[in-house]
């Protein structure tokens, strides 16, 4: 090393040229230093070895393995993250920064702990998974669990979570500082267990329980932080754990370190570590195999904190040791089945009763669980079933049913977090097998069903419920046939067991079946099922009973019984408020759902009132602004539109659409409703080009997410025809409406035959054909259309009035003016009976009447009618300039007929002031306006 470099290199290079003894001789002669000699020989050996100095992957391998070590981004106070304003940094973690943040909710300031991640979620899939998980977490409410208030993703794709702001000390510090005695510590620990158990019953696993996540406030209240957050932040694109799952090694269960299935037993393990720490002041799972009590008198090693534990060893020995050791078993299936049973065990100990945990010596003689060995999948499935049985799945089964009922009138959703839990578990059960050997979800459900049937230890009622749950999982996987047979089996077993008609189990099973029937186009069967179930459960105030009513409301609406649907939905709301409390998210969601239903049923005032109240509560409580909220915005927009509150309509649509787009990027089936509604609104306010853009976007979206032949696409095509018609592009409008009718006709005949949509589209086509001047054809088509309408809409209303109006317009083209007048009169009489007639239909009918009167030379009557039409439109919707121009043109023709040139000129002058482009007017109006 101290040699001049040239000589070292020269020696090396020369030695390389020589072989064997010649090389030795050369080095003997030229390299006296033993160290240099060794070095050169080493280099020659290295040269002969073909391996490169840097193993495969080169420096990139190193750079990637080292990972990112970027320091946290500096975000100044006052910055906005989602709806929150940052106040100060509360802490830094490895992957996140926690801020104190605030936001204004209707004048009040809400304080939150905002956790901002440094790693972004870049793919839509990753963001969707984040939202799915987040929904489950927001539902989690428990006095001892810090509530998740909102979660979202910033514009930079960084996920953030807003949590209830809690100030307190880590539980271990709390017990030490306050010198709590053993009984007090154990009681505190029971509170922790009970809270964890509640979360487990909602199928949420904490995954990172440790003292810094278990706080005790100054009031002595236990608050668990970051429940489920670890999972929320570790989903990657495939929904598997990433290479960076967040947990804390000291509290992590073996299965966590080995990437095994994470279950509620994982938290039980962490609780065991915490219990050991609470009673000894030391962490007990150091792998030394020492019993917790041996820690108390052990010498304090360097770096560990003094225990300060006011606990004598004698107290601890025996039962407590056994409890901690059972909780810390390497084998998840040998730990306490739930946090609740751990709490009960501590309760028994506090009460002086014998505990169930056995001394380890006896326990270890029993068979070892084969989780990670052969038979792993099946035994894990069996283990999972055990956990479900221990948690009492009835609780969440009802929740599943409620969730399903709430969304029943829409598409089935895969975003059910509770089912996701089970499905994930089933998947992780086989995660260790090679990919091509992994069982399909269907096979796993079959395996699980078989285990449920065969396990002799299962309570028969639990068995029935498990089968029901597996049926729901099949349904979520889109396997309706298997779902139905499992649900039927569950119902049959419950029947054999003589389960009472008002029991939670029976209601859950029937609601499950009803949802399946409804979503497989057998709504009338579902309707009968609920009709028979409901009377028996009137006095039952449970989640399941709410679900049943909600489903019945939907099936009543499908059966065309608007009154009945609204009554049932109101009962559902009242029950939801009793069951969940009026300010609970469930009750509010039920309310907004009722508001949406009212809007669908045309009860706009009711819908407006219910939605506004529900949405105000929603915001006040800081519930997440999600799809359900966005749908409420759309429905409120529809109601406002019909109620003539036109100023308020557009922002509602725009906000709803923005929200939907934040839920999912790109095409999304939920966008359709809002885009079509917005397009039709824009149309009425004369923003034709914008309406066209929006409706075209809706159509492209629908064709992609639903397909070209879907009913939703047909409805959007009909809306496009309206836009094109208003723009006088009649040929294109006819093509669109024709296509819409074709699609709807394909779907006709089934149970849900979309007859109202089809009847409306047919009438729409008649109008377009008539406007194109093909009067004979229009008359023939109209006869069919009006027959359809009177058949489909049993009570004559807006649709029939519109049909009569179109009949009159055809009669005018046929010069049968008396008949046109008769049609107009009948239509107006009908509209007078409708609560909230659609403004465009009323105005069009009055215009028709004026035209008929004009043709019959009843000039004065015509003038009165056309002015009435003008005033009606001008007052309600002064933005409809094209419509107003048309009315003024008609008025001008009336005045010409009255030979009052001045009045005609005045009307035309007013029309020209409106400045509507001529191509937006029909031929006759154009001619009138161009007349000098």
């Amino acid at each position: 090393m101290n040699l001049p470099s040239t000589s070292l290199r020269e020696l090396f290079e020369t030695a390389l040229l020589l072989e064997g003894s010649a090389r030795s001789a050369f080095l003997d002669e030229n390299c006296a230093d033993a160290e240099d000699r060794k070095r050169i020989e080493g280099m020659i050996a290295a040269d002969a070895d073909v391996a490169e100095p840097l193993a495969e992957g080169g420096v990139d391998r190193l750079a990637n393995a080292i990972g990112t070590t970027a320091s946290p981004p500096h975000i100044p106070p006052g910055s906005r993250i989602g709806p929150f304003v940052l106040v100060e940094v509360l802490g830094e973690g490895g992957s996140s920064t926690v801020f104190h943040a605030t936001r204004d909710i209707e004048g009040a300031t809400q304080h939150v702990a905002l956790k901002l991640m440094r790693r972004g979620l870049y793919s839509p899939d990753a963001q969707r998974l984040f939202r799915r998980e987040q929904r489950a977490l927001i539902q989690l409410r428990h006095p001892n669990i810090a509530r998740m208030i909102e979660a979202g993703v910033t514009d930079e794709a960084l996920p953030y979570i807003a949590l209830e702001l809690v100030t307190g000390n880590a539980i271990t510090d709390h017990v030490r500082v306050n010198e709590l005695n053993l009984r007090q510590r154990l009681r505190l620990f029971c509170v922790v267990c009970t809270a964890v158990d509640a979360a487990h019953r909602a199928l949420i696993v904490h995954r990172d329980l440790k003292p810094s996540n278990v706080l005790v406030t100054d009031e002595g209240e236990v608050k668990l932080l970051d429940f489920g957050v670890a999972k929320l932040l570790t989903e990657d694109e495939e929904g598997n754990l990433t290479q960076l799952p967040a947990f804390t090694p000291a509290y992590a269960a073996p299965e966590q370190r080995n990437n095994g299935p994470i279950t509620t037993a994982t938290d039980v393990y962490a609780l065991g570590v915490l219990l050991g720490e609470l009673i000894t002041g030391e962490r007990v799972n150091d792998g030394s195999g020492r019993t917790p009590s041996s820690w108390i008198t052990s010498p304090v090693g360097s770096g560990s904190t003094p225990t300060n534990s006011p606990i004598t060893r004698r107290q601890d020995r025996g039962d407590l040791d056994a409890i901690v050791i059972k909780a810390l078993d390497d084998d998840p299936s040998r730990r306490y089945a739930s946090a609740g049973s751990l709490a009960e065990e501590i309760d028994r100990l506090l009460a002086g009763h014998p505990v169930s945990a056995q001394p380890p010596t006896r326990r270890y003689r029993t068979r070892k669980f084969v989780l990670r060995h052969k038979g792993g999948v099946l035994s894990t499935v069996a283990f999972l079933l055990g956990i479900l049985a221990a948690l009492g799945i009835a609780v969440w089964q009802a929740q599943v049913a409620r969730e399903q009922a709430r969304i029943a009138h829409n598409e089935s959703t895969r975003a059910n977090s509770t089912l996701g839990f089970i499905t994930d578990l089933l998947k992780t059960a086989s995660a260790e097998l090679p990919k091509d050997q992994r069982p399909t979800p269907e096979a796993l459900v079959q395996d699980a069903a078989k285990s449920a049937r065969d396990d002799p230890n299962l309570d028969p009622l639990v068995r029935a419920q498990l089968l029901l749950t597996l049926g729901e999982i099949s349904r979520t996987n889109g396997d309706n046939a298997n779902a139905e047979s499992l649900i039927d089996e569950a119902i049959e077993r419950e029947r054999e067991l003589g389960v009472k008609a008002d029991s939670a189990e029976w209601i859950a099973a029937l609601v499950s079946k009803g949802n399946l029937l409804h979503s497989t186009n057998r709504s009338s069967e579902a309707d009968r099922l609920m009709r028979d179930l409901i009377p028996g459960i009137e006095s039952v105030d449970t989640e399941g009973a709410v679900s049943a009513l909600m489903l019945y409301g939907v099936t009543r609406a499908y059966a065309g019984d608007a009154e009945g649907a609204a009554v049932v939905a109101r009962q559902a709301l009242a029950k939801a408020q009793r069951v969940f409390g009026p300010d609970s998210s469930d009750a509010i969601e039920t309310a907004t759902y009722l508001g949406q239903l009212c809007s669908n049923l045309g009860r706009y005032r009711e819908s407006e009132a219910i939605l506004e109240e529900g949405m105000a509560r929603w915001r006040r409580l800081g519930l997440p602004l999600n799809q359900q909220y966005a749908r409420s915005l759309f429905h409120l927009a529809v109601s406002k539109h019909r109620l003539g509150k036109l100023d308020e309509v557009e922002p509602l649509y725009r906000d709803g659409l923005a929200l939907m787009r934040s839920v999912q990027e790109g095409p999304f089936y939920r966008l359709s409703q809002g885009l079509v509604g917005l397009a039709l609104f824009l149309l009425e306010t004369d923003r034709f080009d914008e309406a066209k853009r929006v409706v075209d976007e809706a159509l492209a979206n629908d064709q992609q997410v639903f397909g070209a032949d879907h009913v939703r696409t047909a409805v959007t095509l009909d809306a496009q025809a309206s836009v094109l018609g208003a723009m006088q592009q009649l040929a294109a409008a006819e093509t669109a409406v024709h296509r819409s009718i074709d699609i709807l006709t394909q779907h006709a005949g089934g149970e849900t035959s979309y007859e109202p949509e089809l009847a409306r589209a047919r009438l729409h086509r008649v109008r377009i054909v008539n406007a194109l001047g093909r009067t004979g054809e229009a008359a023939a088509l109209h006869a069919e259309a009006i027959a359809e309408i009177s058949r489909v809409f049993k009570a004559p209303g807006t649709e029939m009035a519109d049909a009569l109006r179109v009949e009159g317009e055809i009669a005018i083209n046929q010069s049968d003016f008396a008949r046109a007048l008769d049609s107009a009169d009948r239509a107006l009489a009908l509209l007078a009976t409708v609560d909230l007639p659609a403004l465009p239909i009323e105005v069009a009918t009055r215009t028709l009447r004026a035209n008929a009167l004009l043709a019959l030379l009843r000039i004065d009557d015509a003038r009165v009618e056309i002015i009435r039409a003008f005033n009606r439109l001008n007052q309600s919707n002064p933005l409809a300039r094209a419509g107003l121009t048309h009315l003024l043109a008609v008025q001008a023709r009336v005045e010409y007929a009255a030979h009052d040139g001045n009045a005609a000129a005045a009307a035309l002058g007013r029309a020209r002031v409106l400045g509507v482009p001529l191509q937006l007017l029909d031929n006759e109006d154009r001619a009138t306006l161009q007349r000098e």
Partner: protein
Amino acid sequence: MEDAAQSTETTHGAFEADALFVQVYDRLKAMAGKRLAQRSRGTLDTTALVHELYLRMGSQRELAFPHPSQFFTYAARAMRHLLADRARDRLRLRAGGDWMRTTLTGSDLRLAVDSAEEALALETALQRLAEADPRAAQIVELTWFAGLSQDQITESLGIARSTVARDWRYARAFLKHELGE
């Protein structure tokens, strides 16, 4: 080893004090950081990064390099420092305790720390080589950190192909011996 690695920060010398070098370093660092942050499993391709920067700088005419060889010399040195700096950060964070524990699992953390140590061992060996034979060290730098082939290096440095091959053979044996110790 920690000490030896630390010393690079003070021995960068005049070359590293060059404003051009600082700019190249910063640009590469930003690009690498972005690349790593972009995906959950961000991967770094050193060579691609250097060449991307070369193209960018060429198209924007923002930095004046009289000859591409000078750019690659700078870029390779910058990438080398980047790797060493990141390795030091990683080891420092490990020493920092809890900070890191939540971002890496046991096995990944071990891999990260092992890799950081390997990278610093490499850096130390390269420094020793640079002391013994600066040109051989530069050829290693250009090969590993800028991804240049021997032909490209021949062209860039304006030396004979056989010289490059000889330097490389010497460097290879030297480094392997250093790292094997």
